[in-house]
């Protein structure tokens, strides 16, 4: 289960940032469209850039509204189930598109692509069973983040494998530079579940029995993944089970951590001048994700962010939404200010040093996060039970059986398993 404190806190204190966007006259690129555009999505700078650019299509025939909030996953499905749907477009990522596909609220885009989107590069089109369901505009992944100065002090190169990372961590601790040099988003629930999945897949583990919804994590790779996680947490702040991505970034900026596997989309925060001392931000470097035990697959998953169009809306609104979102993710949005906001999958993008980690991950043979209807249920079961293992409440075999059993009960309820 993903429970982000920041998210709950935000929703408790502030209502979601409901923006009514209006941007004067229509730009020529939007063409002849008329209708309602209403976007729901996560809230970070790159998505603001997209919705602002989409809003340039607004005129007296087209209205553009955006509701960007960290709680978008809780509202996008209900907001698209009505007829007509409240939201004509949802900005989603690899895993969050699954509930929308399961709920059958996403419009196949093939005819709209044929009519308005001939110039969208093929690789940006996300297809399921040959039908276009989303258009991707950025990529994200977790990869190595390290402190150059600390590694120089112990005379080591940036680690390429988790074994080297453990060796470096031991040396840093032994040299008395840092007590807990390893960081990571290991908060119980979603974050922890993803770390297990990263490592398990790098060890060659398969999450499901060949193509069926039956989970299979109780195997050698599962045990090895748990054991590696336990070793890593030995070099982490003892509070690791409460550290989500925000807390992990704070630990880094406080200078307490020298090595971690962390989100590319969040490294910008670590390298900017806010929130830390020059010693930390000047020495923060990114590298390729690490492999394990001589394996070829790095312990990370690839993610894309993209936009969809709702099924339950009039065709005119769908066309307006398609054109507005296409404008929002066109090469024209790239400039000096927006270039470093994300690893844009848009023509004309030049990676900034901060984005090098994600570029290296894409070249490293990493696997994409599985886009399966029942993946969310397994992810949740892993996140809950791995925490029990790491806090010493259950052994590896029990943990892996518990993951399978918890998933099976949930999947039966949802009708995925009989």
């Amino acid at each position, binding site marked *: 289960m993903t429970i982000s404190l920041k998210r709950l806190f935000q929703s408790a204190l502030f209502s979601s940032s409901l923006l009514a966007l209006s941007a004067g006259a229509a730009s020529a690129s939007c063409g002849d469209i008329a209708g309602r555009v209403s976007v729901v999505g996560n809230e970070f700078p790159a998505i603001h850039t997209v919705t602002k650019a989409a809003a340039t299509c607004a005129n007296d025939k087209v209205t553009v509204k955006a509701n960007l909030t960290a709680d978008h996953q809780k509202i996008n499905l209900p907001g698209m189930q009505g007829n007509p749907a409240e939201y004509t477009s949802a900005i989603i990522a690899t895993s969050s598109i699954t509930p929308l596909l399961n709920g059958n609220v996403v419009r196949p885009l093939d005819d709209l692509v044929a009519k308005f989107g001939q110039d969208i590069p093929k690789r940006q089109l*996300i297809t399921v069973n040959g039908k276009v369901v989303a258009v991707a505009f950025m990529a994200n992944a977790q990869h190595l983040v390290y402190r150059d100065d600390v590694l120089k002090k112990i005379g080591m190169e940036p680690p390429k494998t988790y074994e080297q990372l453990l060796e470096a961590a031991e040396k840093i601790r032994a040299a008395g530079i840092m007590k807990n040099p390893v960081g990571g988003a290991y908060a119980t629930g979603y974050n922890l579940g993803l770390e297990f999945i990263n490592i398990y897949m790098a060890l060659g583990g398969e999450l499901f029995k060949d193509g069926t919804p039956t989970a299979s994590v109780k195997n050698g790779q599962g045990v090895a993944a748990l054991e590696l996680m336990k070793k890593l947490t030995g070099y982490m702040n003892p509070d690791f089970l409460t550290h989500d991505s925000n807390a992990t970034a704070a630990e880094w900026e406080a200078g307490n951590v020298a090595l971690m596997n962390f989100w590319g989309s969040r490294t910008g925060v670590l390298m900017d001048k806010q929130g830390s001392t020059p010693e930390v931000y000047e020495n923060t470097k990114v590298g390729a994700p690490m492999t394990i035990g001589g394996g070829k697959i790095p312990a990370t998953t690839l993610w894309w962010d993209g936009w969809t169009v709702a099924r339950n809306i009039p065709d005119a609104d769908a066309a307006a939404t398609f054109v507005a979102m296409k404008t929002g993710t066109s090469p024209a949005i790239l400039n000096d200010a927006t270039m470093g906001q994300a690893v844009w999958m848009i023509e004309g993008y030049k990676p900034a040093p901060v984005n090098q980690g994600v570029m290296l991950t894409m070249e490293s043979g990493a696997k994409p996060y599985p886009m399966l209807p029942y993946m969310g249920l397994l992810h949740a079961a892993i996140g809950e039970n791995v925490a029990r293992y790491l806090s010493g409440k259950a052994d590896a075999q*029990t943990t892996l059986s518990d993951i399978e059993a918890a998933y099976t009960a949930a999947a039966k309820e949802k009708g995925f398993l009989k």
Partner: protein
Amino acid sequence: MKHKTFLWFFLPSGMAMFLFIAMPIVSVLTQSVYAPHEQVIREVENCTLFGCSKATQIDQEATRALRDAEPMGRFVGPSIYTDRNHLAFAEIAEIWRNASGHGNFFGQVTNLPFYDALSFTLTYTALVTPLSLAFGLIIALAVNALPRLFRGPVIFVSLLPMIVTPLVGALILFWMIDARGVLGAALQALAGDPGLSIKASTPLMWTMLIVYGVWSSAPFAFVIYYAGLQTVPGDTLESAMIDGASRWERIRYVILPHLLPLTTFMALIKIMDNFRVFEPIVSFSAGAHAKSLSYFIYSDLGGETRLLSSAAATSVLTIAGIIVLISPVLVRTWHAFGRVRA
């Protein structure tokens, strides 16, 4: 009051109770015995930025046919209640057969998610309810003994924990008990163990949550008791003093019996409140160490794939739990009421 007058008098509240209490309970009950349809899965090829791969998808056409046939969903009876993530009858029977002793049996049962949540919820309710009432009474007695001039400011300060939003109050404490926070560091120094972390230890986390529970709900008991203390008859107290009763004896034999109805009332409210403990677990990020029934429901609803039937079943079990817990107090009140009437 005439029956007809009473009926008209009661009608608005009756309607509200029906709409906002009875209907949701019926809806939750219904939801808990229905589950989504069996999903027809088919193999597809997905192509993303990172290449194509084999995957599966829900066959919407086939699933729609099932949905149209049974719009309510699939009737599953009590099977959600008895599955592994709830009452887990089959698993408990299995553990009973194989367990090597009572300790081992309970250890394995609390490894099951529902019983794990239940054990914390019950412990929390059993400790926080009496402790917060006791602290509330002590504060009320102390404030009542103060000179009038100081009472106002002291009451204000004592009420602060209740005024602060639970989420924020718990967050403040969360940062104070961090390994680098004021309380966390103080505890490390006291214990002489620099590696000690409240957030990493299950017993300490439980203790912390219970301390937070008492801290945040004692002011409520204090206000009610303080108001109650103003109604203690002065002449009874005076005659007790003339009879030579000490301060403790006056509290034990005059004040406490006088406050008994208030205590019953607050025990009822607090049991219900504490049984649905939720915010501190979120604020303390305590999910790894302590889960409550409410947190369990929140997890089911907060995941990427929402488990509505599971959340509904847990809600019904929570309601059942509250009924069981408050029934002794209710029965007692009922008898007391009967005595007065008779």
